[in-house]
């Protein structure tokens, strides 16, 4: 790389630090707000040193609706990943043998399905589900999330699985194994990192999803992103509870995100674009 002038280097640092702060400050703000009592929260100018309180965290976990929403989010996100894997693993196994045009067209079609805004499907599912009695059920949401989770898993898993030499399949066949046996006994253990990473990507999607959860759930299956909006409701905005709930919701996905940050973009960078 060409040598930078001192001014350039300095400017790059300034841009990087300012941008980093622009990302961090709002997140830190919510964290602080979750730890402030109501009086401190509205102090102006804002307080940076105060006596932290855990009253808001205690309040949300004493709220049985919030605890139920937490359980629902875990059930629905885990269930979505599990069901999506049943479809996505064999599909990826098939895609990795494709070459050139066939592989590209399959991957692009799958990507396209994921990119379609959920609003397109929202009304028909609501009407379907109200007639099939699937509103406010876990499985109802899990089925809809297949539309997004299956493509996410295939896109994240394909580059990892693509690194497994195809010769394994040939030698497996020569040893008399069926394709199913090759898939589950030989290759699946080799790509377990990819399975975990793609599973986390799909989990994050299902954990975060708001639009369908808002409409399909009512009482029994309300998820975390929906319950948080209820603190903005009847008795005015309960900012302490809202901030504490926001921290609880984002904590697991941020941890997951750090763990798999390398894989989060491989799914898309694996596809190179010609100049």
């Amino acid at each position, binding site marked *: *790389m*060409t*040598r*930078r002038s001192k001014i*350039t280097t300095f400017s790059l640092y300034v*841009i*990087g630090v300012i*941008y980093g702060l*622009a*990302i961090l400050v709002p*997140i830190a*703000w*919510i964290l602080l*707000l979750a730890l402030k009592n109501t009086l401190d929260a509205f102090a102006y*100018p*804002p307080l940076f040193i105060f006596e932290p309180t855990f009253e808001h965290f205690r309040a949300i976990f004493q709220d049985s609706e919030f605890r139920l929403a937490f359980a629902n989010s875990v059930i629905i996100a885990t269930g979505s990943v599990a069901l999506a894997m049943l*479809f996505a693993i*064999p*599909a990826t196994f*098939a*895609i990795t*043998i*494709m*070459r050139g045009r066939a592989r590209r067209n399959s991957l*692009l079609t799958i990507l*396209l*399905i994921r*990119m*379609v*805004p959920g*609003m*397109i499907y*929202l*009304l*028909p599912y*609501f*009407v379907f589900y109200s007639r099939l009695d699937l509103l406010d059920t876990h499985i109802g949401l899990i089925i809809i999330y*297949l*539309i997004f989770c299956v*493509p996410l898993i295939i896109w994240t898993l394909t*580059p990892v699985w693509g690194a497994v030499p195809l010769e394994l399949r*040939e030698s497996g*066949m020569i040893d008399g194994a069926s*394709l199913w046996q090759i898939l589950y006994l030989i290759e699946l253990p080799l790509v377990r990192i990819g399975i975990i990473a793609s599973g986390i990507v799909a989990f994050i999607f299902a954990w975060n999803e*708001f639009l369908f959860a808002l409409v399909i759930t009512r009482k029994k299956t309300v998820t975390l992103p929906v319950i*948080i*909006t209820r603190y903005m409701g009847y008795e005015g905005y309960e900012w302490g509870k*809202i901030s504490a709930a*926001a921290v609880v*919701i*984002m904590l697991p*996905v*941020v941890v*997951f995100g750090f763990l798999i*940050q390398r894989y*989060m973009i491989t799914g898309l960078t694996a*596809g*190179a*674009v010609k*100049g």
Partner: protein
Amino acid sequence: MAAYEPIPQRAYFKYLSPSIIVLLLLTVLPVLFTLYLSTSSLSFASPRPERFIGLRNYSRLLDDARFLQSIPVSALFIVAPVALQLVLGFVIAVVMNERLPGMRWLRYVLVAPMVIPPIVTGLTWRVMFTPKLGSVNYFLSLLGLDGPSWLTDANWALTAIVIVAVWGWTPFVALMFLAAMQSFPDELYEAAVIDGATWVQTVRHVTLPLLKPTVTFIGILRTMEALGIFPIIYIVTAGGPAAATETVNFYAYVSGFSYLKVGYASAIIVVFFFMLLLIIGPTMRYLLRNFQVAS
């Protein structure tokens, strides 16, 4: 092309087809059903059974000022955030590609907005824009500026949504650009050194042209996702003030689930779907011509 192929590709068909069938069923059926609903009078507010009313929902759309206003809002929320994300994402990717000592933390910081639930992103910024509680206007006051009333003034509310969208999605763009930059051949940069190019010239005449196809691809992805912007609007402005920040899909949601006019909302969705096709059509043609997957 594989040189040998003792296992016929046909053998793999049964591994791929369940996914394809399920995905098609789950997506095509709802779209067809929406087309049907859009010609019906179905409303959850009325006990009367639905009946076929032809294109009446569509003709009503043409007279609906709120709907007509939502189209330019949708366009604004695509063009402004995506353009800003691409420009800012490029700048940040360049910064990160320099591997400055002591700046590795930025990579980790970028992950946060990518994984934080959009609803939490929205709430966070809702707080930031709220007077006293939040800090946007506080920081502006430190700079000697008088902050506007963000969420009650129509133009500032539009600006607020754009800011949130840029905050939330620039990291993804930057990381994608960075990944592409790291795959560029070193020889070109060495040649630039030999030619005596300055750092700025190298970025402009080597990095930027090489990145062009990635910019197009990411621009397409972001455009399609920007069309579906929902949770942020729902939380930050709820479409207000006075429907000023309502996009087409947000208005469809309001019609269907607040006013319970399912038939009418379906007609909006169909229009929304055609807007999507306008983007997807040229996109697919471009991708089919220029996109290659590593294999």
